[in-house]
């Protein structure tokens, strides 16, 4: 799925605290599942669209990309639910998932990652008593968001390199021949990233990132 990254706009939705937006997202999720009627779910969907496109002034294309990413899942779900439970039931399921996808997109597009991470760190702070470091969890989330597109880019480069030498570009064979070199690249990148985290003071007290026996000349 396309990652809806922050879209900088001066709007009340952008200015709202990340915790409030996450609570609103939870509330939307609860309502669309707890009150499974078309008028309610449809109403929530309209409210989400008004918030995203109207108040937050997000580009329609951005929300469109999120929907396109799940459109085949929605269609498959609609067909299965339609066969089993009828058209009304299918419409309800599709609208419900569409609402959740768009609401999540509005939250991520109007909230900086650091703000979301701060909320997660705050929520995780009670875990300090069992030795968990909330800052580490926050960093993990931020790095996951940062590295997903990078890993996708590396996979694309490997596929291009293989295609240039006549390798398969589609199907299971293409994936299997991409997986091993991608894994090697990701591990190398993870090693350098660990060094960079050390160099930028992420873990001052820990020993150097280099594992024993790993060479560099």
């Amino acid at each position, binding site marked *: 799925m396309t990652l809806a*990254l*922050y879209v*900088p706009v001066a709007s009340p939705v952008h200015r709202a605290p990340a915790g409030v937006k996450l609570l609103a997202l939870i509330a939307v999720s609860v309502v669309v599942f707890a009150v499974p009627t078309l008028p309610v779910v449809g109403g929530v969907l309209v409210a989400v669209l008004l918030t995203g496109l109207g108040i937050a002034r997000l580009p329609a294309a951005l929300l469109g990309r999120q929907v396109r990413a799940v459109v085949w899942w929605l269609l498959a779900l609609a067909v299965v639910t339609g066969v089993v439970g009828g058209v009304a039931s299918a419409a309800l399921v599709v609208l419900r998932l569409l609402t959740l996808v768009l609401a999540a997109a509005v939250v991520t597009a109007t909230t*900086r*990652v*650091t703000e979301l991470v701060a909320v997660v760190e705050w929520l995780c702070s009670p875990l300090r008593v069992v030795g968990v470091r909330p800052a580490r969890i926050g*960093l993990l989330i*931020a*790095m996951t*968001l*940062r590295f997903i*597109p*990078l890993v996708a*880019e590396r996979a694309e480069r490997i596929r291009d390199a293989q295609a240039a030498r006549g390798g398969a570009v589609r199907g299971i064979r293409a994936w299997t021949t991409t997986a091993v070199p991608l894994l090697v690249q990701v591990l190398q*990148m993870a090693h*350098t*990233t660990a*060094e*960079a*985290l*050390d*160099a*930028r*003071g*992420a873990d*001052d*007290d820990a*020993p*150097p*990132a*280099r594992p*024993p*026996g*790993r*060479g*560099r*000349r």
Partner: protein
Amino acid sequence: MAEHSTDAVADPARGIVLTGVGHTYGSRTVLADVTVTLTERRVGIIGANGSGKSTFARLLNGLVVPTEGSVTVDGLDTRGQLRAVRRRVGFVFQDPDAQIVHPTVAEDVAFGLENMGVPPAERAARVGEVLDRYGLTGHADHPAHLLSGGQKQLLAIAGVLVMRPARIVLDEPTTLLDLLNARRVARLVQELDQSVVVVTHDLALLGGFERVLVFDAGRLVADDSPAAAIDTYRSLMAGRT
């Protein structure tokens, strides 16, 4: 400049001192018997691939701790005073993608300051100042993965400079860049206020440097002015196929 214990001050009189340094990975020796004192503001490191120069660079801020001998930075030992050494010596890696850890530009520049415990207001001011200095202000909220190669390297350098280290080590900072961006980074290196150690294959980057070390097969084989050191390096390579 705001006062923080983290704002390191260079002490060129003491410099970076390596005494009898060697390093091995398992049974493989990658660096042997290096004794050198670096007090110059611009020091270049050259050598063939696998000559030990990247390991040498990593010794300077404690990313690698020597298996033999000692490394001190302005009197601080990398073995026992790692935190203080790392705050004095910033490190820029060859591949900026591997060192950018946050999804957006401004967030990534702020990362080192968060680790240093710089208060949010000052953090924002310092991030803004560095982004402005390197022409990245317009990209502050942009996803880092959408930047060009040159912009990513500038971001990587900005992420280090914002921490205001007294010294900076750059490991092949122009290797992945086109000519224009390589020139831009070279100019940036020349203009840095900090003491700089650069590992490079780009010999043009060494213009104006005071001293260049040449490594070969894990040993320091020349320590001279840039012109003389580059001649030594070319002679070494000329004899090989």
